């Protein structure tokens, strides 16, 4: 004789929608912090002659603050970062990103683990 087994699950409390709603602002907050941190570090590292390049480094947020973009707006910014025919490169953006990004994933993890 074959017996019948079964499990009935009754949901008495469902906080998943609230947690889902809280994830986006928490991640956006970490994106903003990391982006601005990269901007600050790049401004500290960039070589300064007149200050124009340093002043041009800025951050832009898009995709509901889930994407942060940071960089210089002056055309010659890339020649400083990557070098030119007779000039050595003096990287300032990538070292800033390298210093900040390893901590970004764990910061997001921490922020998400705090959601209740």
């Amino acid at each position, binding site marked *: 004789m074959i017996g019948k087994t079964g499990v009935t699950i009754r949901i008495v409390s469902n906080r998943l929608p609230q947690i889902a709603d809280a994830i986006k602002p928490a991640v956006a907050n970490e994106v903003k912090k990391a982006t601005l941190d990269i901007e600050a570090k790049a401004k500290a590292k960039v070589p300064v002659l007149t200050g124009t390049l340093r002043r041009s480094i800025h951050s832009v947020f898009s995709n509901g603050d889930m994407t942060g973009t940071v960089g210089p707006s002056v055309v010659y910014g890339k*020649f400083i970062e*990557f*070098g030119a*025919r*007779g*000039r050595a*490169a003096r990287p300032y953006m*990538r070292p800033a990103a*390298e210093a900040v990004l390893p901590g970004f994933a764990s910061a997001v993890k921490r922020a998400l683990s705090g959601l209740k």
Partner: protein
Amino acid sequence: MAVEGQMVAAWIWDTLKADAGGSGVNTLVGGRIYRDIVPQAAALPAITITLVSHVDENTVGGRRVFAVTLTDVRVVGDGSGYQNAVAGRVDTVLQNAAGVKSGVTIVELRRDGVQAFIESESGKTYSHVIQTFRTEAYG
């Protein structure tokens, strides 16, 4: 104690110089492989190797375990034609390469990205193809 990033850049220089066969990097650029800057008098194409970033990874107790490094290999050419053949050979030689330099172990080079742009300076035009290689290193 070691400055791992500098050793990575030096090892890349050694490796490209050693690629001296008929279609080797050193042959393609006539031996013009430099650290950081192409001398003003040098002919083109030429290659520069620049340490971009060196971030130490330490234990909680403050012991340094390894460094994560980024290094640019830039191929500079005369005119607006990109030196893609040279850049391609550089990638062939360096991708997944590993070695040791002055007691520092270079774990494995992986290309992180490619940039290319044209520079105009005093009526002259130069092309730049830049490949960025990432590796961990310890010594």
